[in-house]
């Protein structure tokens, strides 16, 4: 294992939403294929409070009718830091997301990507170096209105599966409405239909 085979890309953004909203967006597995044009399907195989094993079908750039299966393991390491380990086209990657709260309505998101490019995979270095910032920007822009709206509805007291408070006077920002993992899903969610998840033993 040679560290010089690692390609590292760093991207830092600030956003006018709480740290909680950013974390919610990363753990909202159900939006992927509805919101992001690069995703065709996403299946959860196993999850616990702070980790998930997921298989995504990602559309291949320039030939979007073809998809690549990407197994990924995502873990919320601490309140601020999450790691995602994935394998795509035989390339192992590690993504570290650090979400630092600036204030209750603003945070800084540091996205660090590492790709292990050994052997023939070295030829992918210039491609990935150019592709990752573009891909990151696309995903960021697709997620941006979601995060801003999520902040807006939370500021008027919205709660998942409950909606807004009945009384208008209660439609104010409430504390203690934090993200609790795993995010609850309905019983027959599309994320839970993979045969290997549902088979017993």
């Amino acid at each position, binding site marked *: 294992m040679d560290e010089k085979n690692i390609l590292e890309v760093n991207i830092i953004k600030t956003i006018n939403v709480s740290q909680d909203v950013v974390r919610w967006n990363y753990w*909202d597995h*159900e*939006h992927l294929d*509805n*919101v992001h044009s690069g995703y065709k399907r996403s299946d959860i195989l196993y999850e616990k409070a702070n980790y998930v094993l997921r298989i995504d079908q990602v559309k291949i750039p320039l030939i979007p009718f073809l998809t690549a299966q990407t197994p990924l393991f995502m873990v919320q390491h601490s309140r601020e830091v999450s790691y995602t380990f994935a394998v795509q086209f035989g390339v192992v990657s590690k993504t570290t997301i650090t979400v630092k709260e600036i204030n209750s309505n603003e945070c800084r998101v540091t996205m660090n990507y590492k790709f292990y490019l050994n052997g023939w995979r070295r030829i992918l270095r210039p491609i990935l170096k150019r592709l990752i910032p573009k891909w990151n920007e696309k995903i960021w822009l697709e997620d941006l209105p*979601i995060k801003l*709206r*999520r902040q807006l*509805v*939370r500021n*008027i007291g*919205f709660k*998942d*599966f*409950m*909606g*807004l408070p009945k009384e*208008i006077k209660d*439609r104010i920002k409430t504390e203690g409405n934090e993200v609790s993992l795993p995010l609850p899903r*309905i*019983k*027959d*969610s*599309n994320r839970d239909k993979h045969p290997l998840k549902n088979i017993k033993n």
Partner: protein
Amino acid sequence: MKEKILLGSLEEIADNPLVKYYEEIKDELIIFREADSKDIKIFSSICPHNGGPVNFTNGKLVCTWHNYSYDSATGVCNNNKSKIRLCKKDYVIDGDSIYLING
């Protein structure tokens, strides 16, 4: 005591649904004509699942974040086994104006 809140005009929903946030009630509403009956319906357009935006397209009320769909007459979620539903609003029409009946 019930109050009337001006939401918009019939002209505004002639071709497309009207989706707008109303500060007076701190809610975002969708006002549209049903595909078949052409009846006017008003619901909160904040999806009770995660707060996503509910749109009315091709005769269906659908949340664009997670594809939850709702019955356009009742607001009941109709593509899964959950019991969530969109909040339906009462209204009156006075001349060309649509008013929410609140309270």
